[in-house]
């Protein structure tokens, strides 16, 4: 258990010290969401109706572009081999790295989401649903992302391939996350969507950890 905590603390320290990492992801999230009014026009009604989707899609993209750092540094400096050879279960190591990834990139996005929603003329009565759906959804994005990031380790092409692998796996959680917000806006019950989203997170987590661990074992062979 202490090892897991130390790993989370180490990854967070790395994310803070390599200033580019967490900060750039957040800047990307803000900019990508702010670009939409330029693309679709400044009509407040149109922006208000797509705001939840825009925030969700940009959160998904921000999570995906930050995946390259998840295991690559550890592979290059050799610490990944030590983690794989360690007596602790590799799934726990992956869980710790996902938690650190989420704390560094997912949590700031969740915190900034209401601000971006406000800029996009989102109906702020439902802001808490947006935050709740992102708070449940972004850990799932980190977990699905760890599968993609570990699978592409050592591949000839990095970034675009990670996206191709990860995005299909992220779609279910996004569908129900956006569904919850739309239900709130339409005055329908929010709970079913949130519960399904949480169920996807809970059921997908062991699968993602198992798959990532298997992929890491292949990567260090």
């Amino acid at each position, binding site marked *: 258990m202490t090892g897991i905590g130390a790993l989370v603390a180490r990854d967070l320290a790395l994310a803070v010290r390599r200033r580019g990492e967490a900060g750039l992801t957040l800047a990307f999230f803000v900019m990508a969401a702010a670009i939409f009014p330029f693309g679709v026009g400044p009509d407040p009604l149109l922006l208000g109706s797509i705001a939840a989707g825009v925030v969700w899609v940009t959160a998904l993209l921000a999570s995906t572009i930050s995946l390259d750092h998840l295991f690559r540094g550890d592979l290059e400096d050799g610490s990944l081999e030590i983690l794989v050879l360690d007596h602790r279960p590799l799934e726990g190591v992956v869980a710790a790295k996902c938690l650190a990834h989420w704390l560094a990139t997912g949590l700031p996005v969740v915190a900034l989401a209401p601000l971006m929603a406000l800029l996009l003329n989102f109906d702020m009565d439902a802001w808490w649903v947006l935050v709740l759906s992102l708070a449940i959804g972004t850990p799932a994005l980190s977990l699905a992302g760890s*599968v993609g990031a570990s*699978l*592409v380790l*050592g*591949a*000839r*092409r990095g970034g675009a*391939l990670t996206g*191709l*692998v990860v*995005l*299909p*796996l992220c*779609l*279910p959680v996004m569908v129900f996350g956006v569904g919850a917000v739309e239900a709130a806006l339409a005055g329908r019950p929010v709970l079913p969507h949130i519960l399904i989203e949480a169920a996807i997170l809970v059921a*997908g987590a062991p*699968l*993602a950890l198992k*798959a990532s661990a*298997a*992929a890491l074992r*292949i990567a260090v062979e």
Partner: protein
Amino acid sequence: MPLRLHSLASPARFDRFARRILPWTWVLAALLIPCGLLWGLAFSPADYQQGDTVRVMYVHVPSAWMAMACYALVALLSASFLVWKHHLAGLAALAAAPVGACFTATALVTGSLWGLPTWGTWWVWDARLTSVLVLFFLYLGYIALAGSFDDRSRGLRAASILAVVGVVNLPVIKFSVDWWNTLHQPASVLRLDGPAIHASMLWPLAITAAGFAAFFAALLVVRIRSELLAWRIEALMRRRSAGAA
């Protein structure tokens, strides 16, 4: 049955099996596909609502079935490759994936050709269409991942893990139309209470589907054999360059 499948894991034995089965699959495909399509396109009755456009079904539905069945096969083969380390299983999955991607693309294209006259639009973001599109992306991701490593067996193993993870999408496709009652119609053939379409349409559909399956089997056997040859050539080249050095 598993024991007999395992015996195919030896490339030499697979080659003998392939030589025996290949003519039959080609003959079956060459008989069943024209027969089913001719029956479906020319002699089956037109639908009372959709008229002649219903005939798109005889290509669309078998393609969609094959798209899903092929993904299930890719995932099963990948799983057995990861568990039992049978190299041939991984190769077979790699050989099947592009064929499955083509079936998925066929299902999507014929579906949108069918959508225009019946729904009035080429494409809607309906649950079934979207999840089949995701299936297509999964195929693409699998193929791209397998081809992205300098060490081919490394790429094969990484892609196999992805194929197994992607299985979660299959039940979503199958039941999407029941869970979200959207534009795409619910299943009318593979139902617990028996098919809901008339025998005059079911027969040509079943024959075309069987023909597609035979065609798929033939392509799969040819592709596995060429993959095996490619790996063997690569191994020979490596041995030769090692001997020269």
